[in-house]
């Protein structure tokens, strides 16, 4: 087992879709994509965002650009101008996901 920081192998961008946040994570190379494809599961992401994402997490794959897209439902405090959050659009949530450490089998 080896621990790697997600931020060392991937970048990304996040934004809002109503009360859901979208978090796109992109691996820098194909080896990185193999790792995120295998280890960055919807369950793992849901657990990471405990207390932030109050709904389900959906995962979509874009192997063509080495990316995963996550939809975090019920996350933005109502979304739009309803949200009282400082980050009402979830703009910083891609960085929040990149805080994650993954335990991988080499």
């Amino acid at each position, binding site marked *: 087992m080896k621990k790697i920081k997600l931020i060392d192998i991937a970048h990304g961008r996040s934004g809002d879709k109503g009360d859901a946040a*979208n978090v796109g994570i992109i691996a820098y190379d194909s080896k990185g994509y193999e790792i995120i494809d295998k280890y960055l599961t919807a369950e793992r992401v849901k657990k990471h965002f405990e207390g*932030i994402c109050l709904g389900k997490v959906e995962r979509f794959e874009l192997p063509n650009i*080495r990316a995963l*897209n996550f939809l975090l439902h019920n996350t933005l405090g109502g979304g739009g*101008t*309803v949200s009282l959050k*400082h980050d009402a659009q979830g703009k910083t949530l891609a960085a929040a996901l990149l*805080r994650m450490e993954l335990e991988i089998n080499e």
Partner: protein
Amino acid sequence: MKDKIRIGSGQGFWGDLIDAPYHQVTAGEIDYLVMDYLAEVTMSILQKQKNKNPKLGYARDIPELMDRILPICKKKRIKIITNGGGVNPEACADSILEVAKKHNITNLKIALVLGDNILNRIDDVISHDCQLNNMETGESISIIRDKLLSANVYFGAMPIVEALQKGADLVITGRTTDTGLTLAPMIYEFGWYKNNYDLLSAGTVAGHILECGGQASGGNLLADWRSVPDIANIGFPIAEAYPNGEIIITKHESLGGKVSIETVSEQLVYEIGDPKNYITPDCVADFTSIKLEEVGKDRVKVYGIKGLPETEFYKVSCSYSSGYSAVGTLTYSWPDALSKAKKADEILRKRLENLNLKFDEIRTEFVGYNSCHGPLSTDIDEDRINEVMLRIAVRGEDYKSIERFGKEMAPLILTGPPSVTGFAGGRPKPADVVAYWPALIPKKLVEPKVEIVTT
């Protein structure tokens, strides 16, 4: 037929870099300038402005911008396409005609795309075979019917294509998809058929890449953000489109920023849902088919795109009034900055409770500590942290409660924890909360209209 066209993005939202469109039309060659001004909330703000003054309701940056770029665009034959007409494309066009007159520009053809605003006929629409239920929650629109502020259908590229076919130099639309602004000139110039969904999807993907302006050319870039050259003079992205659906994303050489696989792929994943079904009024693009290749400095080829037929519905974006909110901030310094901010929050909440005020939500965040990443934030060392901003936000239906909250923030300075500052802005004022109601409407119930006005 032209062998290629260059479409430059000029604005990613209303409030974006004022000079970007000017640089886009002067720092190199483009054939089309496309500008997106409308966020979901914008329509309701514009509708309110129009209710007060029938000559308002469009992006008022436009006349000033046209004063700078219209003579240049006319001379260089650059066509302009924008959704900045908001809820009043007619008034927007009038303001541009005045600018044209001032510059003695004759034979200017402005096309208006109308028919997206269904607020006045909403009851007819609902009584037809269409419920306008909330797409996300399934709730019936009847629960917010009396509070509706705006209701606009998202049109796609086709009305803009019609406008270009009628010889328009400028196309001013109301609610149009951001992607349609970029797709339309490709359909018009290359004669793409309405049912060639791979080509329509290629243009749609190009539109998605361009729709947030500088976000595709080095802005908001997480991948090695320090590496972006001369971002102060960032050049907005340009889509160089070819008749076979290949797109090259680039920028003017003399401007700053960069275009790379990283800048393009970050924008591709921005605000998307299911990548296999990117739904627009024109087609359903498959983002998992997109291929990217760096083909030169600041040149990324986007190709291989597949798509499916459009659906039978337009999306409708409604907004409605949903009470009031206010935000107050205070800054606490070392020593014990976070403890002081937490104590101040506790005191304020106690006072609000004593006053029996009514709120739907009170939210406290500590800027500099956890306002972005919440529970994921690493623990703070009280001895080392220099300062923390306490941010308290409230929301509710009762205006008086929200207003009174605003009057309870400042007193914390003299009647709360010490070493506090940052109250120069005055009392937090209640703001209208505008909530968003997405719905679907059968396409047959709405008819886009294209009108031409000339100087």
